[in-house]
């Protein structure tokens, strides 16, 4: 059965893949609650389709706000049938830098925020016997790289969390989609060295939404050729992997 995605909450909608997905959903006729921290960015996006794109200012680290904000959104728009969690941060970690505050911010935004929103959505969707939860994880979660331990950890955790959620809810008709992008041209990757196979946020968003609309719970690399990289990375023996610099 195809997923409807007619009333969708997009968390992390002010930039990158979240923004692109919100824009594309609204263009396809959906009502979209766009949730992000930066009010001016949200208002700029909402202005593109007033009434279809509805702005809600929210900092993903403020998990206690989520239950009431979700309720406010449903009061405004009616019962939601899709949640896209696209909020994510990846502060740069220098060689020999050990910065707990950066780690904490990644756990808060990339993982705890996702759990806060997905709990709300999963309970509603299980009761409604339908709905789509889409989480933007990352290929970074496939292996613990030396470059950014906390980022890899949060994405591995998010992947596992989404898998559990899928196993928990798919029997009730809930569609849980894990998207693992490679390099996407967004503020997060700007200025990084050694990028390859870079695709635009619009392209990544389009592919992700197409997968979600199929209504089949799925784990997918975007674009799909990253599955090859993931396969190699996962299977490299540790004594080799630890000598690599990527």
């Amino acid at each position, binding site marked *: 059965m195809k997923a409807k995605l007619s009333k969708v909450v997009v968390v992390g909608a002010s930039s990158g893949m979240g923004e692109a997905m919100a824009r594309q959903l609204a263009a396809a006729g959906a009502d979209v609650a766009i949730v992000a921290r930066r009010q001016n960015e949200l208002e700029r996006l909402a202005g593109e389709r007033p009434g279809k794109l509805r702005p809600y200012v929210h900092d993903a680290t403020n998990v*206690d706000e989520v*239950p*009431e904000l979700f*309720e406010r959104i*449903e*009061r405004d728009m009616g019962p939601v049938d899709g949640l896209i969690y696209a909020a994510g941060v990846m502060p740069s970690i220098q060689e020999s830098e050990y910065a707990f505050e950066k780690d904490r911010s990644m756990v808060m935004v990339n993982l705890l925020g996702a759990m806060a929103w997905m*709990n*709300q959505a999963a*309970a*509603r969707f*299980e*009761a409604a*016997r339908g709905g789509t939860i889409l989480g933007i994880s990352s290929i970074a979660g496939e292996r613990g790289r030396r470059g950014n331990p906390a980022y890899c950890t949060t994405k591995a955790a998010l992947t596992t969390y989404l898998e559990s959620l899928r196993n928990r809810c798919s029997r009730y008709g809930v569609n849980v989609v894990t998207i693992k992008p490679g390099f996407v041209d967004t503020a997060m990757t700007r200025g990084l060295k050694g990028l390859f196979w870079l695709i635009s946020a619009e392209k990544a968003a389009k592919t992700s939404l197409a997968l979600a609309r199929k209504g089949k719970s799925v784990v997918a690399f975007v674009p799909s050729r990253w599955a090859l990289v993931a396969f190699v990375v996962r299977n490299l023996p540790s004594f080799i992997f630890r000598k690599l610099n990527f």
Partner: protein
Amino acid sequence: MVEFASTPYRVRAPLRVVDGFGRSTLAACRFLEPRSVEELAGIMGQAQSEGISVAFRGAGRSYGDASINSRGLVIDATGLNRLLDWNPTTGVLEAEAGLTIEGLWRRTIEDGYWPTVVPGTMRPTLGGCVSMNIHGKNNFRVGPFGDHVLELDLITPGGDRLTLSRSQNSELFHAVIGGLGMLGAVTRVKLKLKKVESGNLRVESISARNLDEMFDVFEQRLPDRADYLVGWVDCFAKGKGLGRGQVHAAHYLHAGEDPMGAEGFHVERQGLPGTILGIPKSELWRIMRLFSNKPLWGLINKAKYHSSWREHGKSYLQSHVAFAFLLDYVPNWRLAYGPGGFIQYQVFVPKETARETMKDVLNLCHQAKMPSFLGVFKRHRPDPFLLTHALDGWSMAMDFPVTPKTRNALWALTERLSERVIAGGGKFYFAKDSVLRAGDVEQSYGRDKVERFLAIKQQLDPTNMLSSDLWQRALAPLAKPQPPSQLFGRAAE
């Protein structure tokens, strides 16, 4: 650990997908499980101060949305299940409201006491039995559950603690029993049990060729020839066989009449069959699910009817448990109806119009091509409770499977059935309800009764803290317009 009492429930209360027993109604609710009356009182106090709506839930055996509170708070009371006092000389028992009928009879049967009124399953809690004022197969003889309650403790939404009985707060006592949990939390129930002289009943089976015969079988036995009477109806039969089925009449035994003697009182003698037709009963619902479609279920009804004639006119001994708790024979049987679940719908019709109305009800189902998969027929008597479903007449309970395809047609059918029942002066039962509209309730229960209940609720619960999806659907619309509620979980209307 996070200290729960100091964090708002609207933020921190866990969500739980809560369903009605029919599984066709479900919702995500905030869900808390207090372990003591004090904890329950604390939760109510905090919910009041946060402006969050509250419903109470016992064993979740109401078929529809009586213990569901979308987005609000559901307080599961099954943890409050202590037996507080049992006196085998007087047969008076006191317990917290979360104690189940099962927990109760297991404690009392060996002293020779059985609850005077039990539902068709032993899982419900005493609080649930009080709030729905449940009835049994002996309703015509002994009235509903509430008739055997001596005393209740209630925590009101304002935090007052009241003791209710026929002599103390009598009006409230009669409103809280059958009050759907909308007037406060019942925390203690004092109940009078029935002294029985045997652990068994003598059960007699009589087959009936049609509905008139079924009425006749009941009527012959009503004056003094049975302590329990229940009819099973093959709702698939049409024409001359309309309403055919099987009646079971059960009688208490006197000491000396039971060959098992005192042995029959033992809990082990009060068992349910371990296998049915050779299939382990824990897995039986999977087999039933394969048959859960109209043609096959029709065949099963037909086979059951014809085989009933082999028992016709015979009698046998059966334990109280085996006779009373038919619904517990097959664990998880509710899953047999498939992912869409089912609704149960029970109509009550006064004796003057019952024969015609019941026939029309069965025929309306046939016209819609939606015969009930199961029909259960009973006799009732009036009682003094404010929102009582009982009357001097008859009831038919029907199970209808729900699928996304049939849902709208089924709801339309129940609207026609409700209209017909109301025209016959009938009523409905909230524990079995998923479909009634406020107008149906007003007409069947009577404007004056409903208004009186709403007035009592307004007095005890002026902020409308206590609510449920059932309440919002069937009764709240009848209240006089109130200033817009700021209550949580309500604003999405």
